[in-house]
């Protein structure tokens, strides 16, 4: 069967040559696409190699190092050392409960604040918004903050690094932008049916914002898990360190836990780095779309 040739004709029936963009068969194998693909292989390698190097070193029990793709003497002793050692398990536990409690509290404050800020008719709404926005452009600074935290008894207190980052005006504004997208008619009809403001919050605003809750919740979780500054400033008691603080300490000094089995000092260091990024490494491929959505909620209004 002969292939059907498409003829281009004007409405009057005069035959014309096909438009230039349909003229030539598009080939995928142009030099540009090869170079482009090659560039991205290179870019991905630059990102991956440092992480890969740490990963294989954490699984390698030899003492001779250098460049290699896979561990020469494979063993999990580095991780066994991390997960059996009390001085490492405690910071890990601090990180876990700070992240869980902080994310919950952060989401609660962000959604409640955002929900109030979308009540257009409420007296004082603009004032409330300005009170929040002013904190984005001016701050007391590091030392006055420290003095306030000390005055409140939140230094060397596990509550300090949970409470302080929970109020995040940027996330609150993102949440408000999302709430603004909910049709006002939904709230109006609920109001007519006698629904209370709290009822509308739980039954309309939150259930319709699951994607935004996931994105902003993840932003809080990452911030809490990765928090170093607040611990550095407000916590000096080693028993209250989170994992980032412990990791930093280990990297700076040779304050290393006792090794189990054949794990060398370097193996344990590398295993600690991997442990610190493990939770998000595992969740990341599944949650990537929520992470990306978070940054785009803010961009929608551009």
């Amino acid at each position, binding site marked *: 069967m002969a292939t059907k040739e498409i003829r281009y004709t004007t409405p009057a029936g005069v035959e014309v040559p096909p438009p230039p963009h349909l003229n030539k068969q598009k080939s*995928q194998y142009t030099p540009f696409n090869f170079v482009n693909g090659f560039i991205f292989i290179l870019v*991905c390698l630059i990102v991956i190699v440092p992480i890969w190097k740490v990963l294989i070193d954490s699984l390698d029990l030899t003492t001779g190092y250098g460049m290699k793709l896979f561990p020469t003497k494979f063993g999990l002793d580095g991780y066994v050392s991390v997960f059996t050692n009390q001085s490492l398990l405690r910071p890990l536990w601090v990180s876990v409960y700070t992240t869980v409690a902080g994310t919950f509290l952060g989401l609660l404050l962000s959604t409640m604040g955002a929900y*109030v800020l979308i009540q257009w008719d409420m007296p004082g709404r603009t004032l409330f918004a300005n009170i929040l926005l002013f904190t984005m452009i001016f701050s007391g600074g590091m030392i006055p903050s420290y*003095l306030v935290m000390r005055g409140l008894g939140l230094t060397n207190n596990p509550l300090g690094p949970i409470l302080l980052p929970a109020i995040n005006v940027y996330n609150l504004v993102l949440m408000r932008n999302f709430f603004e997208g909910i049709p006002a008619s939904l709230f109006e009809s609920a109001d007519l049916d006698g629904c209370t403001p709290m009822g509308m919050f739980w039954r309309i605003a939150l259930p319709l914002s699951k994607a935004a809750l996931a994105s902003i919740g993840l932003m809080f979780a990452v911030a809490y*898990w990765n928090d170093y500054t607040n611990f550095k400033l407000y916590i000096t008691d080693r028993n209250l360190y989170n994992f980032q603080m412990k990791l930093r300490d280990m990297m700076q000094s040779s304050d290393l836990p006792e090794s189990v089995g054949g794990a060398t000092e370097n193996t344990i260091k590398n295993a600690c*780095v991997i442990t610190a990024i493990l939770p998000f490494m595992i969740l990341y491929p599944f949650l990537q779309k929520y992470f990306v959505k978070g940054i785009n909620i803010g961009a929608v209004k551009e």
Partner: protein
Amino acid sequence: MAGSTSNGTITVRQKPLGQRMKKYWGFYLMFIPVLIFVALFHYAPMFGIRYAFYSWKIVADPEWVGLANFEKLFRQSQFSVSFWNTVVFSVIKLLLNTGFAVLISLLLNEMISLKFKKVSQTIIYLPHFMSWVVTASVFSLMLSPTATGLINQLLLKLGVIKESVYYLADKGWWRVWYYIINVWHDTGWQTIIFMATLTGIDPGIYEAASIDGAGRWKKMWYVTMPALGNTIITVLILNLAKIMNLFESVFVLQNDSVRRATNVLQTYVYYQTFNSGASADYGYTTAVGLFRSLVGLGLMLICNYASKKVRGRGIV
């Protein structure tokens, strides 16, 4: 509620303030926790700014000194080094990150294989989720001058260097690696905002350009770049407003041998207060912090004005 006046405009008469406030009492209740948090953690520290005019050695009581702290501040060479480092590090970092992010976004946009594109995006976003402590740990292991340091071993094998270099303990090299590490950490994530703009461009425009005979490069230059221009300016303005906040990325990469040369204002304040024993002066470091906040405020206002000019709305 709406009444019409003689000249055709409609005025909406609101209920009296008291009645409206009564209607919203539940919302005021909901806002109380937010107000408490903001008051404690954002507004209470602002009252501490008064210590900028006191001398407050840790062992003694605060003592009023007027503007003496600011006079001292402008005489200290460490202060001006820190201030200029803050500006230079932030601006160069911002330009490098944005430049690479635009370049990568443009190339990603030209990618034919959707699967390869997705995998690349997943990989380049990854470093953003690693804390600065982890990033610093990874790179200090990589850059280590011992046998475990990948970079030194690689360069030795290639014959580029004769003996191992301790990159993070050398003032010059420290800066170079600071920028490289920042690009590694942030560029991928920055592409998201540019990719969102690129996917928003109407494919009809590309088609029209093709019909008019534009090739790949012409389309990139005359269609894609103008569309990206606005986003690039927005990103630059938004980030320029925040340059005074630089702290953690510098702090975790510093070590004793390069500290004095690489301090930024925030790290300077930290070390002056918490690492100088009994000579620490809360008053002086508050003054440095106040200077930083004021410069930050100024930048914010300038960027806000620029943002209104460029894209019709402010940044806050």
